C-alpha cells in the first residue's frame, strides 16, 4: 500500500505534460464555435487589446498565425502567439485602443487601429492590424501585425 502511494505521489508530479493542451484546445474550439460572426470577434479582439488581455481573443488564433511585432515577423503557433503577445502587453501596457477602420464583410475581414501604450513611463503608440480568415466554417485570426 505504501509503495502504491509512493508511485501515485510520483505520478502526480509528472502528470500530463500536455493533458492540459487538449482541454485548452477544446475550450478554444468551443469559444470559436460560439463566435461565428466576424464583427463580434473583432469587437472582442478590440476589447482584449485595450485591456492588454490576450486570453480574451487567444481562442480565435489560427493554428499558424502570421505575427509581426518589434521588428520580428513570421509564422507562430497559436500557443506561441498567445505567449508572445502576452509578453508584449506586459511590457507595453495598453492605455487606449480602438479599431479605426473595419472590414467585417467578405472573405477577408480585417481591422486596424492605433494602440497607445505606456513603456517605462513613456507614452508611445503603434498601429495594429488584425486579419481574419475562414477555416473549417469558423473565423480565425491569421495575421496580427503591430507596427
Amino acid at each position, binding site marked *: 500500500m505504501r*509503495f502504491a502511494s509512493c*508511485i501515485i505521489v*510520483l505520478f502526480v508530479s*509528472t502528470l*500530463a*505534460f*500536455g493533458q492540459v493542451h487538449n482541454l485548452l484546445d477544446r475550450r478554444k474550439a468551443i469559444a470559436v464555435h460560439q463566435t461565428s460572426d466576424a464583427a463580434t470577434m473583432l469587437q472582442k479582439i478590440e476589447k482584449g487589446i485595450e485591456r492588454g488581455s490576450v486570453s480574451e481573443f487567444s481562442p480565435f488564433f489560427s493554428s499558424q498565425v502570421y505575427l509581426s511585432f518589434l521588428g520580428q515577423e513570421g509564422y507562430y503557433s497559436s*500557443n506561441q502567439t498567445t505567449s508572445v503577445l502576452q509578453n508584449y502587453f506586459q511590457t507595453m501596457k495598453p492605455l487606449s485602443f480602438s479599431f479605426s477602420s473595419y472590414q467585417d464583410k467578405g472573405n477577408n475581414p*480585417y481591422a486596424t487601429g492605433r494602440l497607445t501604450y505606456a513603456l517605462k513611463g513613456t507614452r508611445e503608440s503603434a498601429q495594429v492590424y488584425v486579419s481574419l480568415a475562414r477555416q473549417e466554417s469558423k473565423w480565425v485570426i491569421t495575421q496580427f501585425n503591430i*507596427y
Partner: protein
Amino acid sequence: MKLHTYGIGRPVVWGFFVCLLSMGAVRIISQVVSENARSSWAKDESYSDLKIQATVIQAFQEKYGELFRIIEHVKSDSALFAELRRSDEQGTVEAFTRLSRHSQRFESTIDIVDPRGTIVAWSGRSITSGYERFLPHNGGDSFVVILQSGLHTYVSAGVLMEKKDFYVIASRPLELQFPISNRFVSRISFSDELTRATGTEVRIALNTTSQIHSHEKTRFVPLRDLDGRTIAYTFFVPFTLNTILQSVEAESGQWTRFLTALAVLFFAVAVWQISRRFPSLLLRVTVLTVLTWLVRLTWRILDFPGELIGGNFFSATVYSSPFYFGLTTSVGELFVSVFALCLNSVAIWYNLRDHKPSGLRDLKSVVAWVVGMVLFFVLFIWGVRGYAEAIRTFVFDSTLEYQDASALVPDVYVSTMYMNILLLTTAVLSILTVALQHVRNVWRGTPFSSLPWWLASTIMYGFSFGLFMLVSSSPHFPLYHPILVFAVGLVLVELLTRNNSAGSGPSFTKTATLFIFLSFVVAMPILDVRIHEKERQQVRTLVDTFLRPVDSWLSFVLTDGLRTVRDQFQASLFDPQEDRSNSMAFSLWARTLMSHEGFNSGVIVYAQDGKELSRFSVGMTTFEQKELLNKLFDGEEETVQVIERVESGAKEKSYGLWSSLRDENNRLLGSVALMLSASQRALFRGEAIEAIRPVSLPAFESSFREVAVSEFRRGSLVSTTMNDWYGSMPLSDDVMDRMAKEKTGYVWKTEIVGSREFESLYAAPEGPDGRIMVVSLESHDLRWHLLDVLKVFMIYAALLLCIAVVNWFFAKRKSEVTTIGFRGKLVSAFGILGIIPLFLLGYYNRQVASERLQENITRTLSSDLELVEQRILGAVLDEEDFQRGVNNDFCEVIAAEIGVDFAVFRRSELLSSSRPELYQSKILDSRLPGRAFANVVLLEKALYVESETVGEVEYAVGYKPVFFERKFAGVIAVPTLYRQREIEEELAQRNAFVFGVYTLVFGLVLVMSFVVANRLSRPIRELTKAADEVGKGNLDVSLKPTSSDEVGNLTRTFNEMVRELKTSREEQKRTEREMAWKEMAKQVAHEIKNPLTPMRLSVQHLRQVFKEKARNRESILQQVSKILIDQIDALSRIATEFSRFAKMPERKFERVDIQELLGESVLLFRDVRGIEFRTKYSDTPIHLVADKDELRRVFINIFRNGVQAMERGGVITVESSVESNCCVVRISDTGIGIPHETGSRVFEPNFSTKTDGMGLGLAISQRAIQDIGGTITYQSVPQIGTTFEISLPV
C-alpha cells in the same frame, strides 16, 4: 544547535544564511543609494548630464582615434606608396592589392586621395565621390568628418602624407541600415552603443532638427572635428530622479530575486537532508517531490534563471506552450521544468528500485493488487498521452528547425530541445520502471508465480490499455506509442535487474547509458512523426496563404505607407544634408511598411508643379509603374487604385495611392505616389518560391528541399515552379474525383515527378473560376532521416560522455573508481574509431562543397557575362552609343530577356543597371571595388570574380571588360544569387548522401563491435568469473580452453594453477584438522581434568572418613555425593558442548517466520525473575529460509547471555525490521556489558568470562549465522548494556 545531528550539511547552512544576509545587504545598499540620490539630486543632475556628454565625446574620440591608428598603419606601408608613385599600371595594380589587404584586415574603407580631393586608389565601400569639400583648407594635415550616404552614416579620418602628395582616409560606419528584406538588415549603430554605454536613449543626427520623438526634454551634445567645428549632434534623454530611483529599485529587485532563488534552493536541500532520516519511505518520497516542485515554482515566480540569462533561450518566439504556471513558456523554462521532473522521477526510482515488498499470500490480496496495478497503468497510459502531446508541442509550438541538414551539429536551441525530450522520456521510463520492478518483485511471491512476471505485466498493461481506450474515446496519439514505451520499459527492467541478480547492480554510467539509449529509441519515432505532421500543417498554411484574398492587407500596407511618408516628409524637407534628387524617395520608402514587409513597391515625390523630384522603386518594371500611375492620377486623392495584369497566364494585381503634401499652414508643397505590387520579387532574379509569395512564408521544418507552387485553372496548369511540369498540363482525374468527394476542399497526394517523390496538397477555394492551388513538398528519403538520427545520437553520446566524466571525477574523490570492463573498452574503442571519420568527413564535405560551388559560380558568371556582353555588343554601335544608350531601361529589358541582372560601369563609376534601386539605396556600391578596378580596368583581365558582402550576406560578383574596336569602354558586373544559401544547400545534400549512409554503417559497426567484443572478451570474462569463484574458495572450477592462442594458454595455466591450489589446500586442511584435533584433545583433557581433581579429592576424603569411621560420615557422604554428581554433570556438559562444536547436526532448511520464532524463544525465559522482555517487531511478517532449530538456539544463547549479565534484573529488548533487503534482529540487554579488553574475542571458541561456560555459545552462533549468509555483530557499553545485531538475507 548542532545541525549535523539532523543530517544538514555545513555548506548548505552557510549557503542559506549567506543568501539571507546578502538579501539584507542589498536592501540596505539600495535604500542608502536611493536616499543619497534624493538628497544630492540637485547637485548631481547637472553632473549626470556632464557625465553623459563626456561618455559620448569619449566614445566618438575613440571611434576616430581607431581610424587614425589604421591610417598610421597604412602610412607605414612604404611599398604601397612607392607603387602608387610609379604611376604605371602595374604599380597601381600592386597598390590596389596592398590597399585591399589593409582594408580587409581593419574592416574599413581606405581611400588614397590626392591634394585636390580626387580618389586615386581605394578599397572598401565608397563613402563619397570625392573629398574636395572635406580636406582641410587651413593648412592642417589631418581631419575628421561625418558623412551621410543614403541611410548610412560614416565617420572618416584623413592624414596628409609627409611628402604632401597623398591623403590617407579611413572610414567606418557609424549607422548602417539595409532596409530591403530582413535578411539584409545588419545594423551597426553608434547610437545603440552610446545608449548602452550611458544607460539612456541616445541618437545621432547631422542636424539639430532631429530629436528623440517621445521625449520633449532631449538634450544634445555636439560632436566636433579636430578644429572644434561641430560636425554632428547626439541627442539624449537626460536622467531624472525618478529614472535613477527606478533603476536602483530594478537593480536591487533583480539581485533580491536571484538571492531568494538560491536561498530557496538551499532551504530545500536542507529539508531534503533532514527527510533522509525519516523512517517512512512514503514520507521521504513525498518530501522530495514537494521540495522539487517548490523550488521550481518559486524560481518561475522569481523569473529565475530567465531574468539572468534572457535572450532567445527564454523567448516565446522560439518556443512556448501554455502549461500551468508558465512552466513551459520558453526553451529555457521548459528545460528547467523537465530537469526538475526528471530529477524527481529518477530520484524516486533510485529510492524505490531495491524495494522488495512482501509477497501476496491469498487470492483476495492478489486480486486487489492486480486491480491497483491496472488502475496505475491506466493512469500511466494517460501520462504517455501527455508525453506524446508534449513532444507535439515541442515541434508545433516552436520555430526551431529540427532537421537542418546543412549543419552536422544542431544549434544550441535545437540541442536543448533534444535534451528536453531526453529528460522527459527518462522521467516517463523511470516511472514505468518503478512499476514494472514492483510487479517483478511482488509476482514471485504470489500463488501464480509460475507465470513469468513480464507476461503478467503485459497482460495487466494490455487490459489497462483496453480500459483506457474505452474511457478515452479520442486517444489523441498513435496507438503504438504506449506499446513502444511499455516494451522499452520491459527491456529496461530486464537489463537493470539481470545485473542485480548477479549480485551487483549496474554502475551509474551503465544505468545512464541504458536510460539514454532507450529514451532515444522511444522518442525518435514520435518526434519524427510530429515533424512530418508539422510539415503538412505548414504546407496547408502556405496553400491558405496563396488562396487568401490579400486586397485588404495590401490596401492597409499602402495607406499605412502614406501615413509614414507624410510624417517623414515634414522632417526631410528641412534637412539640408538630404540628397533629394536621389535618395529622398528611397529614404521615405525605406521607412514604410511596404519596405518592412519586403513588397515590390515604390515611392515617387512630385514638386508643386507636378515635376518628379525623386523616385525609388523596387521590383516593379517601368511599364508596370507607368500603367499604374496613369490609373492612379485619374482617380481621387487617397483612394487605393488597383490594376490587373496577366503575366505568365496568371493575373497579377498592382495597387497605387497618391496624396498631396502640405505644410503646417496647409500650403501645398507637392505630392507623393505610392505603388505596390501583389507579387514579390527577391533582390536578385531566380528565387522561385519567393517570386510569387504574397507575404512571408512559413519556414519549413526541413529546408533544402524543393517546395513547388502550381496553379490549375479549369483543369489545366497555368503556372508552376515545378521543373518537370509543363504549361496546360491537365489535372489528374484522381485528384478531380477526390476533390469532388472531399468537402473540405483539400486533397493530399503523393506523386512522383521526374525521379523524385513529392507530397502535394491540392486546394480548391470556393468560387466559379475552377482555381486549384497546389503546393508540393519534396519527400525526404531514408538518408535524410538517418542523418537526423545521427545528429541526435551524437548529442546524446556527448551527454553520456559528460555524465561518465563527472561520475568518474566523483568516484575518484571517494576512491571508488570502477573501471570499464574489457568488453566496454572494446565497444567504446570501436565507437570512437567510428565517430572520428565523421568529423573528418564533415570537414572534408564543407571544403568540397565550397570548392565545387566556387567552380560553379565562376563558370556560371563567365557564361552570364558573355551572354550579357553579346547582347550589349549586338545592340550598341560604338563606344559613344555605349555611353549614351546603355541606360537603366536598356539593362532592364536585356535582364528580363536573359534572366540575369547586371550592372555596367564606366571605369570605376556606375553607368547603369537592371536594378538601379539597389545602387540608389546604397545596398550595392556604385563604385567599382578597388581590386576589380585594378584587374579589369587596368589589367584588362577577361574575367575577375570577387566576393562581396551586403550586411551579413556574402555573394560573388563577376566582372568583365567591354571593348569596342579593342578600346576599353566599360565593365559589366553580374552578381550571383545568395552564395551562402547555396553552400548550405550543397552541404545539406552531401550530408544527407554521405552521413545518411554513414549512419547505417556506423550502426552496423556498433552492433558488430558489440558482437566481436563479446566474443573476444568472453574467455577473459569467464576467467575473471572463475578467479572470483576461486577467491571465494571454490576450487572445483575448471575452464575449457576455446582456442590455442594466448588466451587459451592462459586458460590452461589457470586450470593447472587451480588444481595445484586445490591439492595444496587439501594438504593444508588435513594439517589444520590434525592440529585442531590435537588442540581439541588437549583442551578436552584439560577440561576433563578440572572436575576430576575435586572428584578425586572428594573420593579420597570419603574413603578417609569411612576408614576412620567418623561420626559425620553420613553427612560427608551426602556432600561428596553432591560434589561428584555436580562434577559428573559438568563433564557431561563439556562433552555435549564439544560434541556440538565438532559435529553440527544435519540442517533442515524451511520457511521461517522470524518474529514467530523470536516470540517462542522469549517465552522460554518468561519465568526468569527480575527480567523484563520488550519486543518491537516489524508490522509485516518477515520470512526467510533457514534451519529453525539452529536459529532458535542462536536466540536462546543470546537471551541466556543477557540474563546472565543482569544478575540484578533488567530489560531485554527484541526488535525486528527489514533494512536494505535484510532482516535485522536487534537484542539488547541492560547488563554489565562486555569489557573493551575482551570485546574482540567474544566470538572465539573457548573464550568466556563466566565460570560455568565453555565459551562456545557465541562461536557456534556466529558460525550458524554466517552459514546462511548473515552477520552477527555487537555493541557494548560497560555497565550500560550490550546489543547484538543479527542481519539475515530475506
